[in-house]
């Protein structure tokens, strides 16, 4: 029996068919691997570099950032600054994105400038500082190389932006503080003028004068009353003469009562006002005080005049 070897032409056809089958199989590898329908030999996947599950490239970070920035800019243009800060803050915190932290700082700084708000300026500084932390960490060896919010070549420029924001925030705080101090100062100036106590001293001296006069009147009334009492008590005095002395005595008593009461109160109030005025004058400083030492000493004197006594003084 003769064994028939395949002819050369048929063998060539078989070889071509095998080659075609292999090439089709190889070409289909990525498709089947993606679909996951067929189990593949591990050698095919092992050599392929595994992409990190939750990695981030600067381009991917920018894709996430741009819509937030667009929305934020629209809010800022519409004057909704606080809403813009909330938008930027939430996205920045979620992504750990230094650029969004700086966008938030910009919005806070705008609020601080327009509303003269120190707290907003301080918050702007805090946001810029966080951006600075993230950017410096980006340069550190412990940073995740598969998770990059920004490209390494952009870090220097972004750090400069953060630094400028911090300086601006500090300047804004200083400006607003200076403005606040300037508006408070004119209000306190008149209060100083009020406090030299000169008016109180004058009023006190006047009342002391009234008090002394009243007391003098009271003492006079007492003397009149006493004299007329003695006359009335005299058994030789009677009739109209008695009535006259009696009336004078009553007037003297009335004079004594009114004079002593009014004089006493006026003297007490006067002394009080004078003492307060003196204290206020001392505490207000030397501006209101006279220059010479003798003039600085207040003097009070009871001077005899043609019609009695006069109270004189220098304060």
């Amino acid at each position, binding site marked *: 029996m003769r064994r028939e070897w395949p002819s050369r032409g048929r063998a060539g056809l078989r070889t071509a068919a095998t080659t075609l089958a292999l090439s089709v199989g190889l070409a289909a590898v990525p498709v089947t691997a993606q679909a996951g329908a067929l189990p593949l030999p591990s050698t095919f996947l092992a050599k392929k570099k595994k992409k990190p599950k939750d990695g981030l490239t600067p381009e991917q970070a920018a894709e996430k950032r741009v819509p937030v920035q667009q929305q934020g800019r629209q809010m800022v243009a519409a004057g909704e600054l606080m809403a813009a800060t909330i938008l930027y803050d939430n996205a920045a*915190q979620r992504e*750990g994105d230094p650029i969004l932290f700086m966008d938030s700082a910009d919005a806070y700084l705008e609020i601080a400038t327009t509303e003269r708000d120190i707290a907003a300026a301080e918050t702007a500084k*805090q946001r810029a*500082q*966080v951006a*600075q*932390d*993230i950017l*410096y*960490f980006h340069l*550190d*060896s*412990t*940073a*995740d*190389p598969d*998770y990059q919010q920004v490209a390494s070549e952009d870090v220097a420029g972004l750090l400069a932006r953060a630094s400028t924001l911090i300086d601006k925030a500090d300047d804004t705080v200083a400006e607003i503080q200076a403005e606040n101090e300037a508006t408070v100062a004119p209000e306190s100036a008149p209060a100083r003028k009020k406090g030299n106590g000169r008016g109180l001293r004058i009023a006190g001296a006047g009342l002391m004068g009234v008090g002394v006069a009243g007391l003098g009147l009271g003492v006079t009334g007492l003397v009149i009353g006493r004299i007329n009492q003695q006359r009335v008590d005299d058994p030789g005095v009677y009739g109209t003469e008695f009535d006259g002395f009696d009336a004078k005595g009553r007037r003297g008593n009335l004079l004594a009562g009114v004079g002593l009461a009014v004089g006493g109160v006026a003297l007490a109030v006067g002394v009080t006002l004078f003492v307060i005025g003196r204290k206020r004058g001392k505490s207000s400083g030397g501006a209101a005080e006279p220059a010479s030492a003798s003039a600085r000493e207040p003097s009070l004197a009871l001077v005899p005049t043609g019609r009695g006594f006069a109270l004189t003084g220098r304060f």
Partner: protein
Amino acid sequence: MSRHSTSSRLSFLVFAVALGVASPATTSQAASAFGCSDESGLCVDSGGASWEPDKQSTSKDRKKRSTKSPGRISLTIEGGRGSVFLNGRYVGTAPVSGIEAPSGKNDLQVRDGTDVLATGVLDVPKDAGVSITVRHD
């Protein structure tokens, strides 16, 4: 009069000095109770985590990390500010609380701008609530 006031001032001073001398132990105890005195600038207050300063996790450590029963980190900074970075990523600005960390060895860094306040490896036990204080010098 002036002699009297001088002597009373002197006695007050002696009294104050005596008080100061008598209570150094109390003062240092109070400082250690409230402050972090570790040289690395980081103190683990609770949670059973261990801290290795100035170390970095190896690829073996990273493989061993498990998110199945993660720990939670709370961190505060004494005397200043700073941002917290865990396993190479920003997680928040101090004070932070409830930051999820895989059990195992984690890279932790706390920094304020260019100043690195603490950096090293924090070994977090499973399901642990770790409380940390960082000193800002």
